[in-house]
């Protein structure tokens, strides 16, 4: 009798045995998205004969074999000129060492190599490890534990990730989830300064990698899903003192818009557009965070960075263009004053943050070499923008797109497809790309040898319904019920080698899961990337042919790097540790039976737990010699 009773009681609360993961929904039919030819536009036909595409020396100096910032150089090419590892010998690539990070959450950081020391920062609690590469097994030099406030985990929208630090002038500089920027002495691991920038009680966190350039440290906030007000701050590299802070919304004086502001398109000219393009007061909680890549242009002495989506996701609560969200700013580094702005997605209604990387290249266009930045956006287009003026030269889809019908190159405006508008009380089906975009934060690389940009991305679409949402400080301010699904073809990820001059993919590698890792291209003619099911791969940079793969302990969403070791040989390093928004079903405390969980990503990732488990490990690969 007693046993029976216990059995019933236990059953009351337990999960029925049949409740295994949901199946992944069927893909959106190919006919639902527009072709590249029908929606891609350029101001002029390709003129590849007019010159060779490459970054300038100022933005990509000759490779010294180190990897001191996540993007490798200011141009953000993530290109290592090292040639030891090649298509001929990559089959012999093997792990030299692995090192447990002691944190089983999404590891998005790039390992940093400077002065024969490797620096790694983990997801929350943001441990920093310094490893001595000159000694066998790369023993620990020091570990620093910044002890971020635990409550910061609850206001991190999409796992508790960190996208890395940088070494400059004897300092390792990184951010913590609870909103600090910290500079550590590279030799001792002791903090030289700590500056508190974000306030978790308002929903602000910091996950981005700071950019260090010319004695300044650039840092932006995360929290666009919690009604924060986005900003980019510049700190003095020596003292950590705040030099300026430019908000993404609000009056011109807060946005640092003054007489020097010369946006290319008429839609961005006017006074206090950061107030008037919103309903009253809505700009105060309107998002526009700066959690992606900041780029410094040493040639034009300009800082560029993308601004994230407007909030809440429910667009009906914020009529207007919602400036200055979902676009890109060019600023004067010393004063912070804006030079130009371009809005990729005015009045965004699909969560298309504009924060992805920008690669600074000199590229032939209309018969001349132009100083451009190339930016693959969440909204599905690769933009080629004149970086002096902010003029869009071309915009072509690189993933599935039906939420818009191209970019009007006269006005610069994205042409929306009303069929995919989002509404209250009605579900809009099969919107492509999905909320996390045709591509999320995971950075591309560029090889001057092939002229291709290696874009790691997603092939995912979604169903969306707006919901009424109230602003409560420190809680999500989203207002949407989203369910994601695979894009046409059913593969959820792709590595696209994009030819920016000819405006088309050179080749595409399909992946079952979205690619959430960065890529690195090498002088040996290889491209490295990782998959969410735990493969670290090398493909031929010219053809995309898979040449090597190695199964690591957990899915890979980090940024691989290539460096020269103390022995003069080439090494490849990457962090494993699945997570992030896409990997929440493994790294986060979520249940695959709720398709709306993790802001709708679970719906399309419910099978990931079959393939990988949470982890967090540094891997270093070499050719044994």
């Amino acid at each position, binding site marked *: 009798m007693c046993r029976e009773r216990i059995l019933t009681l236990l059953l009351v609360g337990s*999960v029925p045995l049949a409740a295994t993961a949901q199946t992944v929904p069927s893909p959106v039919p190919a006919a639902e998205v527009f072709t590249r030819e029908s929606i891609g536009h350029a101001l002029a036909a390709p003129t590849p004969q007019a010159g060779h595409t490459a970054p300038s020396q100022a933005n990509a100096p000759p490779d010294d074999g180190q990897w001191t910032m996540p993007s490798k150089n200011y141009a953000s090419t993530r290109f290592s000129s090292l040639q030891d590892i090649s298509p001929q010998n990559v089959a012999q690539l093997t792990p030299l060492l692995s090192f447990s990070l002691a944190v089983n959450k999404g590891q998005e950081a790039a390992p940093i190599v400077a002065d024969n020391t490797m620096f790694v920062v983990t997801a929350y609690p943001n441990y920093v490890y310094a490893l001595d590469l000159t000694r066998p097994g790369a023993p620990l030099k020091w570990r620093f534990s910044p002890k971020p406030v635990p409550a910061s985990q609850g206001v991190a929208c999409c796992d508790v990730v960190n996208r890395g630090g940088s070494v400059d002038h004897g300092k390792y500089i990184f951010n913590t989830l609870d909103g600090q920027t910290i500079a550590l002495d590279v030799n001792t691991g002791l903090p030289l300064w700590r500056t508190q920038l974000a306030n978790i009680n308002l929903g602000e966190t910091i996950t981005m990698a700071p950019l260090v350039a010319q004695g300044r440290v650039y840092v932006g906030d995360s929290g666009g899903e919690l009604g924060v007000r986005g900003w980019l701050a510049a700190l003095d590299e020596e003292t950590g003192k705040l030099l300026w802070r430019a908000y993404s919304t609000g009056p011109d004086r807060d946005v640092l818009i003054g007489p020097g502001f010369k946006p290319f398109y008429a839609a961005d000219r006017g006074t206090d557009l950061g107030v008037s393009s919103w309903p009253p007061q809505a700009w105060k909680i309107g998002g526009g965070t700066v959690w992606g890549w900041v780029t410094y242009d040493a040639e034009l002495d300009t800082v560029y960075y993308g601004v994230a989506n407007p909030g809440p996701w429910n667009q009906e609560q914020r009529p207007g263009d919602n400036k200055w969200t979902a676009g890109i700013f060019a600023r004067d580094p010393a004063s912070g004053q804006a030079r130009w702005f371009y809005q990729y997605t005015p009045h965004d209604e699909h969560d298309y943050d504009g924060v992805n990387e920008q690669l600074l290249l000199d590229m032939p266009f209309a018969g001349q070499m132009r100083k451009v930045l190339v930016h693959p956006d969440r909204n599905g287009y690769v933009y080629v923008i004149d970086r002096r003026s902010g003029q869009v030269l071309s915009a072509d889809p690189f993933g599935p797109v039906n939420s818009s019908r191209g970019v009007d190159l006269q006005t610069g405006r994205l042409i929306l497809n009303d069929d995919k508008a989002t509404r209250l009380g009605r579900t809009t089906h099969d919107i492509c790309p999905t909320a996390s975009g045709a591509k999320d934060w995971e950075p591309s690389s560029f090889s001057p040898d092939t002229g291709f940009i290696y874009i790691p991305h997603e092939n995912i679409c979604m169903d969306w319904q707006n919901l009424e949402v109230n602003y409560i400080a420190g809680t999500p301010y989203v207002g949407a019920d989203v369910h994601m699904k695979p894009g046409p073809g059913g593969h959820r990820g792709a590595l696209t080698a994009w030819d920016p001059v000819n405006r088309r993919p050179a080749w595409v590698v399909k992946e079952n899961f979205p690619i959430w890792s960065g890529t690195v291209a090498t002088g040996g003619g290889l491209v490295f990337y990782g998959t969410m099911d735990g493969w670290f791969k090398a493909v031929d940079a010219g053809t995309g042919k898979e040449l090597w793969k190695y199964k690591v302990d957990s899915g890979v969403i980090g940024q691989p790097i290539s460096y020269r070791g103390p022995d003069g040989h080439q090494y490849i390093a990457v962090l494993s540790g699945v997570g992030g928004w896409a990997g929440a079903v493994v790294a986060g405390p979520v249940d695959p039976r709720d398709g709306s969980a993790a802001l709708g990503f679970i719906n399309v990732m419910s099978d990931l737990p079959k393939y990988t488990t949470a982890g967090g490990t540094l891997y270093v690969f070499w050719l044994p010699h």
Partner: protein
Amino acid sequence: MCSGYRIELLMSVWLLTGCHHASHDQAAVTTERTSNGVIASALVPGMIHGASSSDPRAAQYYENPQAVVEGKRLFSQYNCSGCHSNGGGGMGPDLMDNQWIYGDRLEQIHQTLVEGRPNGMPAWGDKIPDAQLWALAAYVRSMSLPQTIAANTGDTPSQTPAPVPREAAQDTGWSPPPGTTNDYTDVIKGPQ
């Protein structure tokens, strides 16, 4: 027969001893002598007062169909859904499984809501009227009930919450070691 000993039975589950052990004084269970004389402590959060509901205010929210429906409405009104989705989780943990970090009895959930929790659960005690907190607690508890799960169609769970049965007050729940995941399902099969 057994129902008269319900509390004792559950205590024995908790203490990992057999069914056949003597009844005890509920007030004195912070430390407990097991059959072989070892002192056991109250490791399950909030269980120091024993397995039955100790807060009289909780009683009316059991077997209460209105409470869970009201709780469902409040769950989105106060943005709980922003962090916990429809129970599946996101920024906050999933609530539709049987894993409870801070206990699953209504007064434990109520306490979680009033005080907040260190890893990012806001405190709502001075922001939401108490009766609403209890309704929220009832809805949260309902999410993982077999009846509620059975009523789920498609991939939007917790839409038809079943009232919380009184026996639920005696379930200690289960929670995985901190930092571990993938524990929501008993068996996961690898890719075919």
